[in-house]
């Protein structure tokens, strides 16, 4: 392209207009509202939201534009060349006053009772731009429910949402956000004229996993949530910036606390465009309630005569000193193992690692307590895939997005919304490739559901088709073909349950994309053959050059999984991390590294005698409950640190109360590798202590010292974080063997264990608000499967696997379309993991109706 043509294009792409006497050049298609915002002119508005499309419903953002006879709404007027705008002329001010006056005609005098009072846009804008007196003396209109004539006007339209239609100013922000950002349709506007009302869809309720955002963006008190209802006035609270602890993306949040009470009042978003767009999932928004929970562990407990009794910290530490010291002296530190939760902060993780590796001189540590049978291999392909760089903001810049083996709405809420945004606002194309139909599919160009357990074959199929169609570099193609050419695409299509055309579609999409995002998720990560799948991904990456024009990574699931990898928390850390640790400590244990699975195995053989869990609950989450429980029961001395009583703490000899993330300053590394700080909102509740403090105390009990002071600790962590932790893919194409797996007879339905869309891990069931959304386990089925078994929604269903059996109610899923069963793992009342076998790639179950 010649220079001249290029210039022409840039000239066409931008427009220059004058706003309040200031000239500004903006890209074509920018609204006057946004253009004014760029030069610091704030135009008042109710209905405009930076992350939604303009609608021009509230008419508050009036501006005067030369040569236009009437006032224009700036949010829906695009800036054009030579436009002269004034945002604060007499006419504009009068116009705003009139708009507010009209808005307030039917607004009830609810400020004293309204929860929004003090942070209400309507109040603020009336105060700044409105008349201070009303000219409308007639009666106000009010929505009346027949049966609720005497009661207050509030309607509960969802588990956590309360609607007051009288206060609504009809800005449609909630409806638009629900549709454009979350892809949900459970709230809408009904009727016309002055009877227009926002309400839940008839017969339904607003219970989508992002419903809390509707409350936050409501400019008035029409939508309020039960969580914050009549709790405290907002001006009495103080805000503390923090990070979400339930997701891998590190969504930015704000804690609201009060000075005199050790209590977190609520969580709202803290918009960080690079990460979260200001939307929070309900897990993040209501999950904070676990911090205030009454059922938290209040004091240390020690086991006396088979029963756990309350004890002081000194007593508990003395017991730890006695037993751990004994094990260490008699059997050696290698007989001690530990498991830590990857949701804890860097300091805690690093202290844990240092305690084990320098005090116990043991390599028995892990942080992945919910991944089945993870073999201890240094630099396994899965580790490489998980270490790849990823950028959340690049999702919306990609024209092709492929979600592979991930049920985003249950794993990565934030990325789920980002993908929706990419489709709705940037016209990206999404391909959803999963072993079962997922919610993301509604925005996907095509949805591909392959048979469970054939993940790597799908990738191979794509590669083979690409070679066939000559979509890729021929020399690379030839190399790869020699490795995986055993099966033809046609056979692969048959095996995976997809068609050859679908492979072609994907191959063409990847090869023709300008920028591609390839997201791999938990379904792959939790699979037994994760290394094999990652090998296939490595081939795909090399063949198409995916990372040259985009990104491909297995997303980390927990708040600080990436940090745990970077700080060397796995039994076999990266080589560079190991070297650095050696340098910092001057020593590094040379004993056999053992991960969770190996440790539990050794517990059974009584080779591991002492075990410490920190925030981890292997009894609930390890995908073979009987295996885990057998192991933990064999341990001589088990120390469990957690916020709540869990299945694991019940077995423990010493239980130590752990702080929540709101109670100390901590750094977390999100799935992009970005370090973010969560600030302390409240003092530690009860007698709980942060994990890094506990580690230090244990070390001191055993006559060692982890850190001289805070500074030393931070410096050491700093050194490790500086290391480049991206592992290189193997240079060559990898061979992928296909083994035919015989399906278990009599257990026809593949089973997937994952998180409920409203829960995450084992802690969120202590949050009352989240329990309002879903409070017990269920088995999610497709309509067809349910019909086959003969169950209706809510009927109890017996789920049997070769090793276990549970009875849970059936739930008919609107999205599933194949014969799979999904059971959430978040509820202690249902021992979901007892159905799983640790060395099985695809669990399968038998579903039978419970006869009355």
């Amino acid at each position, binding site marked *: 392209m010649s220079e001249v043509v290029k210039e022409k294009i840039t000239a066409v792409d931008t427009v220059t207009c004058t706003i309040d006497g200031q000239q500004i050049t903006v890209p074509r298609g920018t609204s006057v509202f946004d253009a004014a915002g760029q030069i610091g002119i704030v135009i008042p508005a109710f209905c405009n939201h930076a992350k939604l499309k303009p609608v021009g419903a509230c008419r508050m953002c009036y501006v005067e534009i030369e040569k236009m006879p009437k006032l224009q709404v700036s949010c829906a007027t695009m800036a054009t060349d030579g436009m002269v705008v004034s945002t604060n002329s007499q006419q504009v001010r009068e116009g705003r006053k009139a708009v507010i*006056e009209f808005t307030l005609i039917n607004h009830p*005098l609810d*400020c004293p009772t309204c929860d929004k009072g*003090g942070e209400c846009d309507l*109040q603020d804008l*009336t*105060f700044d731009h409105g008349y*201070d*007196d*009303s000219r409308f003396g007639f009666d106000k209109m009010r929505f009346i429910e027949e049966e609720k004539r005497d009661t207050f006007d509030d309607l509960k339209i969802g588990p956590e949402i309360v609607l007051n239609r009288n206060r609504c100013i009809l800005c449609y922000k909630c409806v638009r956000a629900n549709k454009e950002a979350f892809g949900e349709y459970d709230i809408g506007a009904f009727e016309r004229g002055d009877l227009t009302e926002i309400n839940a869809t008839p017969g339904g309720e607003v219970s989508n996993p992002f419903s809390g955002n509707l409350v936050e963006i409501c400019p008035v008190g029409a939508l309020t949530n039960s969580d914050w209802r009549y709790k405290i006035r907002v001006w009495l609270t103080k805000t503390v910036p923090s990070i979400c602890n339930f997701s891998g993306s590190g969504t930015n949040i704000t804690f609201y606390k009060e000075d005199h009470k050790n209590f977190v009042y609520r969580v709202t978003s803290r918009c960080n465009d690079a990460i979260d767009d200001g939307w929070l999932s309900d897990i993040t928004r209501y999950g904070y309630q676990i911090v205030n929970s009454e059922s938290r562990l209040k004091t240390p407990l020690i086991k006396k005569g088979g029963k756990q009794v309350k004890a002081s910290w000194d007593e508990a530490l003395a017991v730890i000193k006695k037993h751990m010291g004994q094990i260490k002296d008699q059997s050696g530190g290698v007989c001690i193992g530990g498991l830590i939760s990857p949701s804890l902060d860097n300091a805690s993780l690093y202290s844990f690692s240092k305690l084990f590796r320098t005090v116990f001189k043991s390599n028995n540590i892990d942080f992945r307590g919910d991944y089945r049978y993870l073999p201890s291999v240094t630099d396994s392909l899965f580790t490489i895939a998980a270490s790849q760089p990823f950028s959340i903001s690049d999702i919306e810049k990609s024209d092709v997005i492929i979600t592979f083996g991930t049920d985003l709405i249950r794993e990565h809420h934030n990325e789920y919304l980002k993908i929706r945004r990419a489709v709705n606002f940037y016209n990206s194309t999404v391909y959803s490739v999963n072993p079962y139909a997922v919610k993301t599919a509604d925005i996907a160009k095509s949805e591909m559901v392959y048979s469970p357990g054939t993940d790597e074959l799908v990738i191979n199929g794509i590669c083979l088709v690409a070679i066939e169609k000559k979509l890729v570099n021929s020399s690379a193609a030839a190399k790869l073909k020699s490795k995986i050419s055993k099966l033809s695409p046609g056979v692969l299509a048959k095996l995976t349950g997809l068609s050859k055309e679908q492979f072609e579609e994907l191959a063409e999409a990847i090869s023709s994309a300008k920028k591609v995002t390839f997201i791999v998720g938990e379904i792959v990560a939790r699979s037994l053959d994760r290394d094999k799948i990652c090998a296939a991904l490595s081939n795909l990456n090399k063949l198409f050059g995916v990372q040259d024009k985009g990104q491909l990574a297995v997303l980390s699931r927990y708040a600080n999984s990436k940090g745990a990898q970077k700080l060397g928390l796995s039994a076999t850390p990266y080589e560079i991390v190991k070297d650095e640790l050696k340098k910092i400590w001057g020593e590094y244990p040379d004993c056999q590294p053992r991960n969770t699975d190996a440790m539990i195995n050794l517990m059974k053989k009584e080779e591991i005698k002492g075990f410490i869990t920190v925030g981890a609950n292997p009894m609930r989450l390890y995908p073979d409950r009987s295996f885990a429980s057998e192991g933990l029961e064999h341990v001589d001395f088990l120390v469990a640190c957690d916020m709540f009583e869990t299945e694991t703490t019940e077995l423990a000899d010493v239980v130590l109360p752990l702080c929540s993330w709101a109670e100390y300053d901590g750094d977390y590394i999100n799935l992009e590798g970005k370090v973010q700080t969560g600030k302390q909102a409240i003092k530690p509740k009860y007698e709980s202590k942060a994990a890094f403090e506990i580690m230090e105390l244990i070390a001191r009990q055993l006559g060692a010292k982890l850190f001289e002071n805070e500074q030393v600790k931070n410096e050491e962590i700093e050194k490790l974080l500086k290391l480049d932790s991206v592992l290189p893919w193997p240079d060559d194409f990898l061979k992928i063997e296909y083994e035919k797996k015989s399906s278990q007879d009599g257990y026809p339905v593949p089973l997937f264990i994952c998180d409920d869309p409203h829960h995450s891990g084992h802690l969120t069931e202590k949050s009352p608000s989240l329990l309002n959304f879903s409070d017990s386990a269920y088995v999610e089925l497709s309509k067809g499967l349910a019909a086959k078994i003969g169950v209706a929604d809510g009927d109890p269903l017996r789920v049997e696997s070769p090793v276990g059996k549970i009875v849970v109610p059936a739930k008919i899923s609107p999205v599933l379309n194949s014969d799979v069963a999904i059971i959430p793992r978040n509820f202690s009342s249902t021992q979901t993991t007892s159905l799983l076998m640790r060395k099985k790639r695809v669990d399968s179950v038998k579903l039978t109706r419970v006869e009355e």
Partner: protein
Amino acid sequence: MSAEKKTITLNMGPQHPSTHGVLRVKLELDGERVVTAEPIIGYLHTGIEKTMESMLYYKAIPATDRMDYLAPMSNNLGYCLAVEKLMDIEVPEKVKWARVCLVELTRVASHLVWLGTHSMDLGAMSMLIYAFRERELIIDLYEACGGQRMMTSYIRIGGLASDLPADFEKKVRNIIKTIREKMKDYDKLLTENPIFIMRTKGVAVISAEDAINYCLSGPMLRGCGVDYDVRKANPYSGYENFDFDVPLGKNGDAYDRYLIRMEEMRQSLKIAEQAIDGMPEGPYRAHVPGVVLPPKEDVLYKMESMIFHFKIITDGFKAPVGSVYQAIESPRGELGFYITGDGTNIPRRVRVRPPSFVNLGALPILTEGYLLADVVCAIGSIDIVLGEVDR
């Protein structure tokens, strides 16, 4: 102690009946003669300026009451005028007249307390009882207006807390009449009383030059014959409409100051009478949306008023960036408020120029060379209120 030192050091206060609060005066005495007298302050420090800097503008009004607790209305007025100047608010005519009336009666009340305590310091016991008896009338008027007898907080930004009570005029006229009557008694008791004259004439003298150099104000300054009164020099709140004289002294001694204060009370009653005669009808609050609270009746019926009420109470109003100084003539002298607004809803700086504090600075000059007993007379004639000195 060196052998040559002939003086003795005596602490007067901080607990002493004649220091009118908790003032400590460190005296160097040569026999019974005062060599130096050093006032030591800070025993009543309450951090009022700092408190005001941490509060919304309207919330600081009760804090001003507590500085000069003998003249709460003057403090209210000084602060409110300063904020009104900062916010550029014009108050209704009626408010101006009502404020003048109330402030002048405050001057009378304050001077009455001074008269009672000062004369009691000098041995005239019954004067105290009589002065407080008359002051009670004015205190009752406060109660009828604002509901409080001392810490009134009645004058507000942009007007008054509530409308004047129905029987306001009757009450004020009664006060004026009664006090004018009683002032004849005070004259009989004190003005020509030989003991009083002996205790005050030629005592605690300060020259006009010294008074100006020490930045004195109020009766302390006018006692030396310097004609300076803020009400005449920089009229505020419509003082230019009133006809009154500023009494001046000649000798600058305690007796002259007594005479001036007595005359000021007469003049104040005269002003109050003019104010009550000429009081116009009108609203008791300015209509300034976003700064002055809307009428309570509207708050209960109109959404706009409800929002403005709510926002003003919780968030206050944002003052522009800038500084103002507003001085008024309080009973003790020039009371100034210096307020710096920084665009937020709380002031960046509030500085009070308290007349008592500045006037107290002249104590060493007033007492040098006089007898120990004259120190009591000197302190009394300054008319200090320690709440204001220490703030």
